[in-house]
């Protein structure tokens, strides 16, 4: 269902490689399964023709890979950025995490990516092949003779259903048409949880977070979690903790992780996308974003380079921590 085609992207990548503008291309490559698209660095046209993938499963946000990859090459690296990726791109620039001069960013439109969990919910396990074809996704499984046709719209990832922007906020070159910032209902889910009783909230999160296996996928995919060394891996931090021993530590990890990215999180949704346990981690981040918007005024991380994140800023008239609850209770 993507408007831009694989051929267009390959043409662009190959021409930029050949005219020497860039020396490497950061793109989506084949993974173990068709839906398991993997961020890959391509260095030659042949590699690209053979391995470049573009379909409804190319959700990966490449911004964070620039932190490591730009350090490894002399020249420029080409990166394809979907609209939501550009926010992370800007946020990382704000934090001086990579050298803008070493990147050639091509903005590409995105019609929303598919969620493999939703596909599996329709087709079951044992998926052997997937073909994206226009509005439909053809899923071949080990157990069915005929491919199952799924409507791409029905298996759209949550973050794409609640897409916040189809506008690119950073690029060197734009392929396809520019979109607009979208009015999304992304905070509805958060509001729903807020409306629960404390006991219900606790039960909800206990249920969700107890599934955490501390694989650190959320951390490793997150464009805001690009620390040289994570506090949870640092013996001097006092909270070193590689694997959770009980339910507290899962919470500790996720609260601290969300806190550390609060004000910096662009709400790209990578954490929830990569979570093998399907924990709705974005609901933690969005809670912070919602609170920050309500307490300190609307703020979109990454909308512009150099903006000051709300938690490293203040005004003398800020809301008191205690008033936060009064305000919510009177609104309820």
């Amino acid at each position, binding site marked *: 269902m993507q408007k831009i085609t694989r051929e267009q992207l390959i043409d662009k990548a190959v021409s930029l490689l050949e005219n020497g503008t860039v020396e490497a291309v950061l793109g989506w490559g084949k993974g173990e399964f068709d839906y398991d698209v993997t961020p890959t660095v391509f260095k030659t046209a042949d590699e690209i023709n053979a391995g470049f993938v573009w379909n409804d499963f190319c959700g990966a946000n490449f911004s964070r890979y620039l932190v490591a990859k730009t*350090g490894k090459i002399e020249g420029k690296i080409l990166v394809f950025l979907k609209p939501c990726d550009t926010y992370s791109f800007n946020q990382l620039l704000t*934090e*001086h995490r990579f050298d803008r001069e070493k990147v050639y960013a091509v903005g590409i439109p995105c019609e929303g990516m598919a969620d493999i969990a939703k596909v599996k919910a329709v087709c079951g396990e044992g998926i052997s092949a997937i073909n994206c074809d226009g509005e439909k996704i053809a899923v071949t499984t080990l157990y069915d003779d005929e491919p199952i046709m799924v409507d791409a719209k029905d298996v759209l990832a949550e973050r794409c259903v609640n897409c916040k922007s189809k506008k690119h906020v950073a690029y060197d070159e734009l392929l396809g048409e520019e979109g607009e910032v979208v009015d999304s209902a992304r905070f509805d889910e958060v509001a729903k949880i807020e409306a629960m009783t404390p006991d219900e909230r606790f039960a909800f999160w206990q249920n969700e977070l107890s599934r955490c296996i501390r694989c650190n996928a959320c951390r490793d995919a997150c464009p805001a979690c690009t*620390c040289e060394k994570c506090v949870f891996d640092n013996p*001097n931090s006092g909270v070193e903790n590689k694997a959770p021993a009980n339910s507290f530590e899962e919470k500790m990890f996720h609260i601290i992780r969300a806190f550390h*990215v609060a004000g910096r999180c662009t709400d790209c949704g990578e954490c929830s996308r990569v979570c093998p346990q399907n924990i709705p981690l974005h609901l933690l981040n969005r809670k912070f974003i919602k609170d920050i918007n309500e307490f300190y005024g609307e703020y979109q991380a990454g909308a512009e380079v150099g903006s000051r994140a709300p938690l490293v800023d203040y005004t003398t008239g800020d809301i008191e921590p205690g008033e936060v609850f009064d305000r919510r209770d009177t609104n309820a």
Partner: protein
Amino acid sequence: MQRIGVFVCWCGSNIAGTVDVQAVSEALKNEPGVVFSTNYQYMCSQAGQNIIKDAIAEHKLTGIVVCSCSPRMHEATFRKTAAAAGLNPYMVEIANIREQCSWVHKDMLTGTEKAIILGKAAVAKVNLNTPLTAGESPVTKRALVIGGGIAGIQTALDIADAGFPVDIVEKKPTIGGKMAQLDKTFPTLDCAACILTPKMVDVAQNENIRIFSYSEVTEVKGFVGNFDVTIKKHARFVKEDICTGCGACTEKCPMKKVPNEFNLGMDNRSAIYIPFAQAVPKVATIDPNYCNMLKKGKCGLCAKVCAAGAIDYTQKDEYISEKYGAIVVATGFNPISMDKFDEFAYNQSKDVITSLEFERLTNAAGPTAGKLVRPSDGKHPHTIVFVQCVGSRCSACAEKGKEYCSKICCMYTAKHAMLTRDKYPDTEVYVFYIDVRTPGKNFDEFYRRAVEEFGVNYIKGMVGKVTPEGDKLKVQASDLIANKQLHIDADLVVLAAAIEPDKSARPLATMLTASMDTNDFFTEAHPKLRPVESPTAGVFLSGACQGPKDIPETVSQAGAAASKVIGLLAKDKLTGNPCVAHSNELMCNGCSSCERVCPYGAISYEDKEFRMPDRTTKIRRVAVVNPAVCQGCGACTVACPSGAMDLKGFASAQIIAEVDAICK
């Protein structure tokens, strides 16, 4: 592993009355690292301190815990004790078992229980303490004063008198500032020039003071004690050291139609000029915007008449680099623009003037030689209306003017009104006020004299509108006490314009990493206790750059700033607070979060090369804390997501150890 000694103080019965001190010292004996534990009646006494010293020597202690009164009381005492016994003073921790235990709890059981827990927390912390030494940095014994008004002059004189060299940077061709433009000064009515110009001469003659006039600061690097400053000396096209200030050039200069900024444009000067007779340095300056020689290459008259041969049309801007130990900001103020206040017809009529223009009009050295006349027709004004609070005390939502009270206007308006009535008794003077604010020595008496002895009409109310009509100014105003609307035909309207910080202050603050409030006034390190210091160490504030001030207040603040500077320069070395932040460069992301929350500008960044495990090298941006500037608040440690930033003496691991000990 540490070898820790625990010393429990009875404080007479202050502690021992509610805490079983014996039980506390026994219980703490078993804590990890503790090799010695005792208790004594008064630990802070000489005998008590000797117990500590002896134990340090005898048991080879590496750290001590004193369970006693608040660390705010005796931490310094016990640190000295430890240091005297050869132990690093920062290996001492205090468990506060008096103010926060024995004094607030009544029964022995809970008191003892809590004291033990507090002791355990202190032991847990000491286990992670490391010896700390305060960093030292040298002090360049030279001060920079930015701004050469009365604030800068007084600061420079006071510093120079203490024997330290001072440089004054002034952007105008002469020092003197606003005070040089004033006529008389309240509340004593002595003439401003009579008290200011001797000081200016003192500055010129003081061997410790250098004046960089017609200059500005363009770059500031470094930190307290060690600032590297670049000063741009604008080309004045006159050799300063040769010019005698005789004034022959200014007389002969054919270009005489240059608005005279010293008289606020009320008369003209020549293209080569000396701002006023008592200017310091008394050196001519060529205005390149008007000089025909510089603009068209034709004329050169001034060079011909200059007997000293001081004129140099080829002079270029000059950059001077100098090192300073301290910087004093004295950038002063300006009246705000009247453009947004159409109702007062300032831009429509020459006879509506600001109070500073009024000062020039009544000044004997001013454009009218001190004769109070209307700027439009030179006639003597018979009715003068003074309007107070023009642009002061405006709400932010009114979108013009300033929110604060400009503080000086009530008094100078009383002065103007009084002087006018004194010199021209035939003049009717009206002052429209909202409140008259006279908190100052002899201020209210002064104001009352204006009313009672000099017959100035003070009217509570505001002028709503001024309309020029013929040669009159129709003033429409309200009299709130009489509940009437007044219509006055005035000859002259004087506006007490609000004052604002000089425009150069904001870029300067950025250079100095000194903070400012929303009105661009410099912020103090503490509004009550450190009013002449900026939060940025080594930067001091003098005069109206910190907030509206009259002359006596400015001079006293200038002296205070000077004494702070002298205190700093008198030291050979600066000993910092050792409990400062430091960044672990291996973990630092270089994301700038810490820099953004640092109130002192103590954090900078540098690119550093790192060897990677695969033998390649990588250049990364990492944070570096300047220990001489850091004050140790710890804001950066929480802003840092990776935990690279930590605070010595209050390290994360130490605080967590305390939490753990308390929550066991």
